[in-house]
């Protein structure tokens, strides 16, 4: 097994629905084999995955889909019922903030404890101590017992340790969400660096933008099985449709050739990046596309959480060479509260076919109290009593 390689072969693992039903006799301890009591729920159901060294894979799925269980099996924390789970080289998992910290240890002491738990020697940790401390931005707090830390500080320390030990496989579960935006960005940059050095990342997150920024591949889990395994853009779209409770409708979509969409960001009227807006606000969709193309065309589409198209428009950019910025401004957002997907496709010569997807971004609209539905057609009510005929 090469360092950084990760495989799951027909991996299955189930848990008791009601653990207290587990037979607890001492006799069972020595004669048990095979017999299992009570209703069980499959957290992993015949999962087969192969991940190459240096890949970054996003793991998405609804709550209870088996994402965390997959990480725990890969990390070797929970054994499989059947099948195989293997990670090549050294594995570090970041499954919970502050797991493996001694509350009465200072941040610095916890670097050693955590490193030791992950199988590192004292000298290896000492070599990286300064990098870890610097990255964590903890300053003087690094010599304060972590008991006094905030959630964000726990994250910074935990992530810094995981990111600076020389690991081959990094398993990260949702924890990044705790950090502030700038630290998150810094983490994602650091992860990208580690991947260039050949590390493999498996990231569980509900935040599509985090996954989009680092992962090229997305695996969608549902009820313990792999439902989809392909590029990030398509995987996230599949996942969003799955959330819309129409799982069978999720066709795989083709990727547009020719023009690459490098970036997609939503901004407000003052050009600040945002993902949540109010009905009626100005929304700017900022794209960056790259050619070369003779006649580049980009299309923007807004879909509801079921994946149904609400709106689509396209424009011809003409010939483009290198990276080109395109902004599409919606002066007044005509959507009511809810989550939508804004999807961008690009093509050369022809408008990308409907449904083509190069980038996707989540657009959240805050709830309004005076209207329901999807489109914002709010207006004024006028009431006038008709004068009776004489």
């Amino acid at each position: 097994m090469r360092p950084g390689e990760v495989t799951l072969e027909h991996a299955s693992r189930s848990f008791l629905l009601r653990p207290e039903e587990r037979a607890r006799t001492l006799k069972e301890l020595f004669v048990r084999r095979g017999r299992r009591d009570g209703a069980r729920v499959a957290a992993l159901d015949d999962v087969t995955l192969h991940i190459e060294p240096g890949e970054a894979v996003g793991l998405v799925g609804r709550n209870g889909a088996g994402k965390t269980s997959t990480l725990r099996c890969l990390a070797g924390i929970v054994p499989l019922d059947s099948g195989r789970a293997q990670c090549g080289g050294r594995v570090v998992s970041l499954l919970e903030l502050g797991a493996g910290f001694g509350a009465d240890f200072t941040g610095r002491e916890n670097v050693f404890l955590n490193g030791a738990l992950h199988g590192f020697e004292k000298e290896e940790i000492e070599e990286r101590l300064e990098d870890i401390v610097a990255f964590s931005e903890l300053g003087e707090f690094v010599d304060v017992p972590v008991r006094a830390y905030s959630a964000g500080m726990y994250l910074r320390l935990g992530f810094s340790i995981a990111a600076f030990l020389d690991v081959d496989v990094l398993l990260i579960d949702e924890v990044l969400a705790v950090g502030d935006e700038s630290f998150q960005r810094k983490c994602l940059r650091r992860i990208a660096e580690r991947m260039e050095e050949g590390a493999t990342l498996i990231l569980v997150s509900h935040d599509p933008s985090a996954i989009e920024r680092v992962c090229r591949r997305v695996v969608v889990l549902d009820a313990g099985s792999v439902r989809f395994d392909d590029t990030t853009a398509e995987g996230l779209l599949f996942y969003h449709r799955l959330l819309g409770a129409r799982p069978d409708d999720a066709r795989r979509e083709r990727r547009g050739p020719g023009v690459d969409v490098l970036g997609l960001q939503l901004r407000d009227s003052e050009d600040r990046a945002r993902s949540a807006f109010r009905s009626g606000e100005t929304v700017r969709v900022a794209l960056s596309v790259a050619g070369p193309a003779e006649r580049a065309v980009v299309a923007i589409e807004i879909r509801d959480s079921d994946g149904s198209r609400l709106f689509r428009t396209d424009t011809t950019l003409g010939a483009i060479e290198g990276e080109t910025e395109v902004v599409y401004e919606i002066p007044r957002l005509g959507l009511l509260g809810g989550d939508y997907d804004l999807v961008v496709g690009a093509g050369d010569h022809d408008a990308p076919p409907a449904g083509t997807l190069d980038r996707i971004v989540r657009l959240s609209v805050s709830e309004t109290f005076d209207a329901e539905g999807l489109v914002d057609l709010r207006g004024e009510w006028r009431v006038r009593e008709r004068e009776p005929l004489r």
Partner: protein
Amino acid sequence: MLRYRFLFEQMVRRELRQKYKGSALGLLWYLINPIVLMGAYVLVFSVLLRVADIPDYPLFVVAGMIVWVFFAQAMLAAAPSMEQNAPLVRKVRFPREAIPAATALVQLATFLVMLALLAPVAVAIRGSLEPGLLALPVVVVLLFAFVLGLSMAVSVLHAHYRDVEPVVAAALLPWFFVTPIFLRVEDIPGVSSRQWLGDLLEWGNPVAPFVSAVRELLYAGAAPSLGHLAYLTVAGLGALALGMLCFRRLGRELAVVL
């Protein structure tokens, strides 16, 4: 095991730090507790209720008692240790044996300190240095194997069956009283006429031979017989084997049951 030396070191530090944190005397409590306990027993049994006419009786009692205190404290610390470290076990992969091993090591350190305090006193009281004392390290290693094995067993058993810790705690008190600490087995009234009772008290209880071996070394300067050493070896290795068996059987599912 050697690969994880640094991990053990860290786990022991964590264990030490968590207990008695913020107390003025800190780590000294590890010594104060057993010393007060032993002082009380010595006072009761050598002054108030004289049970035996043994010269230097306090030395006699303490020499046996430190073994019992080591054993009992280790069991009490090991039984809930997995449960106390549940967040760690559920979220990080590392050899889980490190948890009960750390609690056993902390108790071993206490035991060694008391031994180091007691041994010169014993030698001074006896006024001679016998070659038999060379057997002491061997006995201590075997005693540690015994305590480590049982620590591993009770910790992993308690994780699966939460009745184990209260059972252990309840068993320790009567166990203490059937362990020959205040008297040699042969001096217990009624044993001289019933040989089987003496054998049962001395060999039926695996803690008793460890107690008598350490006591005879410190108090009398007498090395244990070969048969006695063989018993200690079997008990130590047997306990280790039991601990490892429990881990093999139950250790894999620890992250699930905790």
